[in-house]
């Protein structure tokens, strides 16, 4: 499939270059990596925090300390189904915008999948990838436009992980359609793409030729583990320290995207010593 090509808007080009950052979630710094400690102990490795949360859990002490001391941040939502117009209700839009403003987020981002079934309720949480069809891509794009208009933030949809993907499109073509219709930037998760390619028995970088690299604003890199489920080989997106070779291959291919602004190493649950070398490698590839 050959998506129509449009140019990124000027507001997208005006987004700040953040450099290499670390992911965080509510409470993650208590048992894992505290970005303020990491940045102080190893200057120059971690330049911002991508804070992932939902309205129930809100902002934790870690992200507030980081941003109060002047640290840059982005806000990664974990609780909206971007294919589902009904899910972008007023309360969620207001609350999410408020949380993002409080941490001075440079933009909003998040997996464009099914974060919960039905309404937000206890036990409804999961993460499924979108259905890879043109209709779904258009619905997703329309909701991104709504989200951007309601919050005033640019929104970067992320390709989610999955144990299976339905629909007739390659996931990169799907997000190319989304970006074209919504005129939005993109967050490419290299580890998630590696999972997709493996499930479709494709080489790691298949599809990047037709993918609008000039819209890629943010990259994710994370470790994964190959697992066997009754003879079925699955990559578990477990955010262990070491990315798979496929993930690195994708990263190396897209790290020079012309409008790239941020790279997140999703590693907050690991010991600091286990992630320093990869932070250095990412900074070398994408200096601030």
């Amino acid at each position, binding site marked *: 499939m050959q998506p129509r090509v449009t140019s990124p808007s000027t507001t997208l080009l005006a987004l700040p270059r953040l450099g290499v950052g670390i992911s965080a979630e509510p409470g993650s710094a208590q048992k894992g990596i505290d970005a303020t400690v990491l940045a102080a102990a190893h200057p120059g490795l971690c330049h911002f925090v991508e804070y992932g949360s939902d309205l129930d859990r809100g902002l934790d002490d870690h992200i507030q300390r980081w941003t109060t001391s002047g640290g840059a941040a982005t806000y990664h939502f974990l609780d909206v189904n971007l294919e589902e117009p009904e899910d972008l209700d007023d309360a969620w839009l207001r609350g999410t915008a408020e949380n993002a403003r409080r941490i001075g987020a440079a933009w909003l981002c998040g997996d464009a999948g099914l974060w919960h*079934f*039905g309404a937000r309720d206890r036990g409804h949480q999961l993460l499924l990838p979108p259905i890879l069809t043109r209709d779904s891509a258009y619905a997703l794009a329309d909701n991104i436009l709504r989200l951007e208009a309601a919050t005033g933030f640019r929104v970067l949809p992320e390709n989610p992980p999955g144990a299976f993907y339905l629909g007739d499109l390659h996931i990169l073509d799907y997000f190319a359609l989304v970006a074209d219709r919504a005129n939005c930037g993109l967050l490419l998760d290299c580890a998630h793409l590696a999972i997709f390619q493996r499930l479709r028995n494709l080489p790691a970088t298949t599809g990047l030729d037709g993918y609008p690299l000039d819209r890629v604003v943010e990259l994710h890199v994370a470790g994964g583990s190959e697992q066997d489920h*009754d003879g079925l080989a699955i990559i578990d997106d477990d955010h262990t320290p070491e990315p798979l070779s496929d993930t690195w291959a994708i990263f190396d291919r897209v790290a020079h995207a012309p409008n790239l602004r941020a790279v997140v190493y999703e590693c907050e649950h690991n010991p600091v010593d286990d992630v320093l070398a990869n932070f250095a490698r990412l900074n070398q590839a994408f200096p601030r």
Partner: protein
Amino acid sequence: MILATQRAIVRMLFDPDFAAAVRADPATTLPHLSPALRDQLAALDERVLRVNRLRRRRALRTLCDEWKATTTLTLAETGSLATLDAFFSSHHFHQAVEDRGSMPLGFAAFLAERIADGTLRTRILPEVLTVETTLAVVRRAPPDPPAVPGPLTDDRRVQRSPGAHPIRVAAGATQAMAQVDRYLFEVGLMPAVALCDDAPQLHLDARAANATPLYLVVVRIASGPTLVTVDEPLYQVLSSTSPTPRKVSAVLADAKQRGIPIDDARQILTSLVDDELVIPT
């Protein structure tokens, strides 16, 4: 079509029987989906649906957190986890997913059905289910509408706060809940006792059989819903209000039918407004 496909995936993930039905006859099981998507669903390797093998157990844990006493009494009666696990194959679960409803409230409906059809027979169980379900409903209640100040004249309209719900149960219900709490605390100290023949057992004492009516209001406070014991007149007046606006005169007339003199009912209604359990609109 897209969301319908996502809902079908969720149902297949939670219910292997449904997944098998999709595989066996996709056109009949999922007539509302496009042939292309339902064929893809039918072709899914069964193993990918089982990658998260604790999916049902995790969901059940969340449900059991809210219906702690009901589920504990159910397990004590049946000795079978399958009794609760059957929820994910029930129409209550599938309907909650299809209707964008609440899985937890669907779980409550599932348990109520099991009580009604005689599958579950523990005497105090319906009363305990009522209390825990009301707590769950109030936990999910929308915010109060704005109150309109002014004297509470007969032609004014009032409505019950969505965060206030009166219930009448047997006094044994709260006793049973307290005894279940103590039991769960004890086994929670060392979960491996479940493997022992001499593990602590749940025995409800005579207090849990107390059938005396107990009047309660489930009230939403900052930390969540809580139970408040009230007297019968307050229960009756609050029950005379409704979640939608109703004229004060109608509320008072209803309360009178419930045996509360008009003047008393008016006084109680005023206090309920002062306590923000009833909202003048």
